[in-house]
Each structure stands twice: as C-alpha cells, then as structure tokens.
C-alpha cells in the first residue's frame, strides 16, 4: 500500500456516513442486522459503482474500440477511462501496462502461460507455501508441463512466510517468483522488498498476487519493483468477473499472446497473424465492458477515501477482535499477534470446533464468516489443519459487527463442545 500522508483528524474516522452508500447493508439476515465479515472473499459495492454500471447499460451499451457510432465512442471512452483509473490506483507508469482480466486467477494464468514458453529444463519457479490455489496451481501446472522445478518459500508456525533461508530458495536457477502481498488466510503482509531484492540478484521476474492488498488502499507498483501485479474487482468494491493485471512495460512487450482472436491483432491474412502491441495483445474478444467501468468507478471511489483515518479505524476493530478472540479457550490465531503488524484478515482454529459448524452458528447471528481451507491447502497442510474460520474487515465494518461475531462465537463454542 502507498504511504498515507495528510493531516491527522482530531476526531476518529467513522464509517457511519460511508455505510449509507451501500444499499445491501440495509438488509437483514434471519431477522437480524447483517454483520458481513467475509470481505476477503467478496465485498459489497457502493451505489456509485452500481450507478456507473447502470449508466453504461442504460445509455452507452455497445462494443468498444471499433464502434464508429456515438454509443461506441462513449463506451470506449468510459472503458479506457476505467483503465486510467486502474493505472492511477496502482501508480503504474502508463495505462498501456494495464490489462483487464476476469480477476486475479486469470491474471496468474495469463502470466504463467506466457512465461512458460521461455522456460528451459533446469529452471526454477518459486512460490510460497501460503499461496492461494490461484497463485499456486497455475505455476505447479507450468512446472509439470515444462519439466521445471517448483520451489517453496516455507511458512512459520503461525503461517507467515519464513524468509530466513530465502537465499537457498531463490537461486541463480530461479526465473519467476510468485507471491501474494497479503495472505488471504493469515492476513500476514509479505516482505516483498526482501523477496524482490533476492529475485533481482538472480534476474528473476516477480509476480505479485495483490488480491488481498488492493482493497486496502491505493498502491504503488513502481515502488514494489515487481514485474506483474494482479488483483480482482469483487474484493475492491467493484463488480464480479473483472480484475486487472499490471505488467511492467518491457516485460509486457516481450510476452507472447495468451488468448487469440478478435481485438488483439494488427493484421490477419491466410499466411499468419501480426499481433497488436501493448495491452491489446492480451485482450482478445469483447471485454467485460460494464464490469471494467464498474471497477474504474470503484477505484475512483477508493481514491477519494481518507485512508489514514480508515486504517486507524481498521486497527481499532482489529484490536477489538484480537482482544475478544484471546478470551476464547482453545483458540489458535494464525498470522501476527499485533493489529499493527497485519492486514485485517483473521483466521483461527478452535479446538474441538470445526469451522463449518462455527460459521453455521454465526450465520444465525447474521454474521457472515468464511470457513474451510480458503483455497490454501498447501498452507493448511503445513500447519496441520484442515480448515479455519476467517473474519475479514472492510471499510464499512463497525464495532457492532465485531461484537456480534464475538457474541456468536461464544455461543458456538458452548454449543459445539
């Protein structure tokens, strides 16, 4: 995340006014107020995002790039403006570095597929054992397909990455390092600077899965010194089915296409095809126009928020949650113990209480949690777990959400033990 500057308000920031922008927060679940704490999976979109999508659908719906009529021009303008919003949110050097995707998973697959063709026997790919399957399976498949070795950055007992032996894992054979900026399970924040430095020492490319970091404020991909950065719209208050992949310009220019078809060519004749340059080479077919416009609106909205105040608020909620969890007997929290050292994603295991049962009981309190392996089975295996319960905080959450969670959790433990 970018450093936040600006004056410190004397009064703590509160989400009360911001919550009015989320129509879904008005609903109830089972006659109780909704306490939504599954934001790391999918979060809600504010009205401005819904309005932007509706405006396109109701006023300018048409195809982009090739329309010669007024609607096509308006749609193209809105679509490219959204690309600009992504570039500004990421602090990319240019809009040309931004590819619209269907989400982080697509971004990883695109990068893995395109990089695979340049790999040779003896090369190595490095991922961490804490990765989401989306940033694990594509690289695993790549290694199996090309006979390349996959190496793992191990995890500590709390699930955070163990970088103590990094120079033994990222070596001169390494071609790509793929890691998440924030774990979707532990909320641990990856020391990307150390990883990137080691990767650069050996000329390896760095892919960053930003799915969990992007929702927490504007980013600076140039400062990260990575080569790829992927994230999803549905975790960033935008629509589902949209995301973006940023690729540093020289790397992007060197990559072969992923999907082929319309929209990604310069010329096609019966002898062959000359591909378009830049991001267009990676956007075959009609793109998800409405979703991209919605994503642009979401990121524009995020860039207007007072992040210093929001982070203080998130930390206050995190401290409230951590204090409450510490009172639950037999509870093991994954990730760092202190609120200021982690992102507001909290996974925990409670002795003799399975996460599915916990989530079921919490649902009766109107509390939406996530239970299971969180698409991170290699991490679960390393920790000797099958599943955990996870609460994840967004900008609209309040202390009432945390209180409802803790109240329900005590009932769940009493019921299940």
């Amino acid at each position, binding site marked *: 995340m970018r450093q936040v500057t600006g004056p410190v308000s004397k009064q703590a920031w509160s989400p009360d006014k911001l919550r009015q922008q989320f129509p879904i927060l008005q609903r109830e679940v089972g006659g109780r107020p909704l306490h939504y704490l599954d934001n790391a999976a999918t979060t809600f979109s504010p009205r401005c995002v819904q309005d932007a999508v509706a405006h396109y659908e109701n006023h300018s719906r048409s195809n982009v790039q090739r329309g010669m009529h007024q609607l096509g021009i308006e749609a193209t303008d809105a679509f490219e403006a959204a690309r600009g919003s992504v570039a500004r949110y990421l602090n990319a050097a240019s809009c040309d570095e931004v590819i619209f995707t269907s989400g982080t998973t697509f971004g990883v697959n695109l990068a893995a597929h395109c990089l695979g063709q340049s790999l040779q026997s003896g090369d190595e790919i490095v991922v961490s054992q804490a990765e989401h399957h989306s940033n694990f399976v594509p690289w695993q498949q790549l290694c199996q397909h090309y006979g390349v070795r996959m190496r793992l950055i191990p995890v500590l007992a709390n699930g955070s990455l163990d970088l103590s032996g990094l120079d033994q894992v990222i070596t001169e054979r390494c071609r790509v390092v793929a890691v998440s900026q924030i774990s979707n399970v532990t909320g641990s924040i990856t020391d990307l600077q150390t990883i990137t430095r080691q990767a650069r020492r050996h000329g390896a490319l760095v892919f960053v899965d930003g799915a969990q970091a992007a929702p927490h404020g504007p980013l600076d991909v140039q400062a990260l010194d990575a080569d790829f950065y992927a994230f999803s719209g549905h975790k960033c208050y935008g629509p589902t089915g949209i995301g973006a992949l940023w690729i540093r310009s020289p790397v992007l220019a060197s990559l072969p296409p992923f999907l082929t078809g319309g929209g990604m060519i310069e010329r096609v004749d019966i002898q062959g095809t000359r591909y378009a340059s830049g991001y267009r080479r990676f956007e075959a077919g009609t793109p998800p126009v409405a979703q991209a416009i919605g994503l642009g609106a979401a990121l524009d909205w995020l860039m207007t928020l007072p992040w210093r105040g929001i982070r203080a608020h998130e930390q206050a909620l995190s401290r409230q949650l951590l204090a409450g969890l510490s009172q639950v007997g037999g509870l093991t929290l994954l990730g760092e113990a202190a609120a200021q050292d982690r992102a507001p994603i909290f996974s925990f295991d409670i002795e003799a209480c*399975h*996460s*599915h*049962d916990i989530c*079921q*009981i919490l*649902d*009766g*309190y109107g509390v939406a949690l996530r*239970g*299971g*392996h969180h698409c991170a*089975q290699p991490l*679960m295996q390393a920790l000797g777990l*099958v*599943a955990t319960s996870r609460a994840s905080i967004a900008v609209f959450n309040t202390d009432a959400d945390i209180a409802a969670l803790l109240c*329900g959790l005590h*009932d*769940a433990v009493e*019921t*299940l033990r």
Partner: protein
Amino acid sequence: MSSGLYDGGIKELAQLDVSPEHLADPDRRASVDNPFCGDQVDLEITVEAGRVTALAQRVRGCMLCQAAANVVAQSAIGLSSAEIGHVHSRLAGMLAGDSTPDWAPPGWERLVLFEPVHRHRSRHGCVLLPFRALLEALC
C-alpha cells in the same frame, strides 16, 4: 441461536468413538474430499462376498460429517454396495426435500437426526461425504 442443527443428538453422535482409524489388513481403501470445505474421509474396509465385514475411517471434518461417519460405521457392516447405495439415495432425497415418512431404511433410523440439515444446502455434502467414501471403496 445454534440453528437447531446441533440439538437432538447430532453432537452426541459425532462424539462417539465407534471405529478405529485403520484395519490390520484392509481389502479396499477410499479417500474422499469435500472441495467446498476441505473435509476429508479416509476409509478402509474388508469385504467378503460383496459385503462389508469391517470398517475403519479417519474423519477430518465438521460435526455433521463426524456424526454421519459414525452412523455409517455402526450400520454398514454386512451390507452390499447396492444396499449402501440405497441408503445414500434415500438420505440424499431427504436432504433435497423430497422425503416421505419413514424414509430412513431399517437399521438406519438414526439418520432422521439429520432432517434439520435439509434446510442448509451448503451442509448436505458434509452428511453425504462418509457415504461417498464407502461407495467409492465398494466400487
């Protein structure tokens, strides 16, 4: 506030210790996962003339999965694949909401404890997982 799922005997059923984790010399094994939540059942059986003669299982799952696994362990001995398949079918039907009175086959009456689960579609797989494991082992 515990949604009714955990009342009426499910908890007690889940906490029974009715089967070992391994057999000394199993004829068949199966390992099944519920990809939705990561629950796992590793099952071993011995079979004679097409019928289950002994069963062991290692269940890493929720309370519903544990309870269903214990019913399987207690009731499946002596049954064939077709008979287990019939029970599975009746249970799946009840969960889907199309149960009739006395849907639980003789010897499997305790499955009525799972009737409240039919309102919770995301949990159906938890109850059915041990049956899937046994049917896979009998294939």
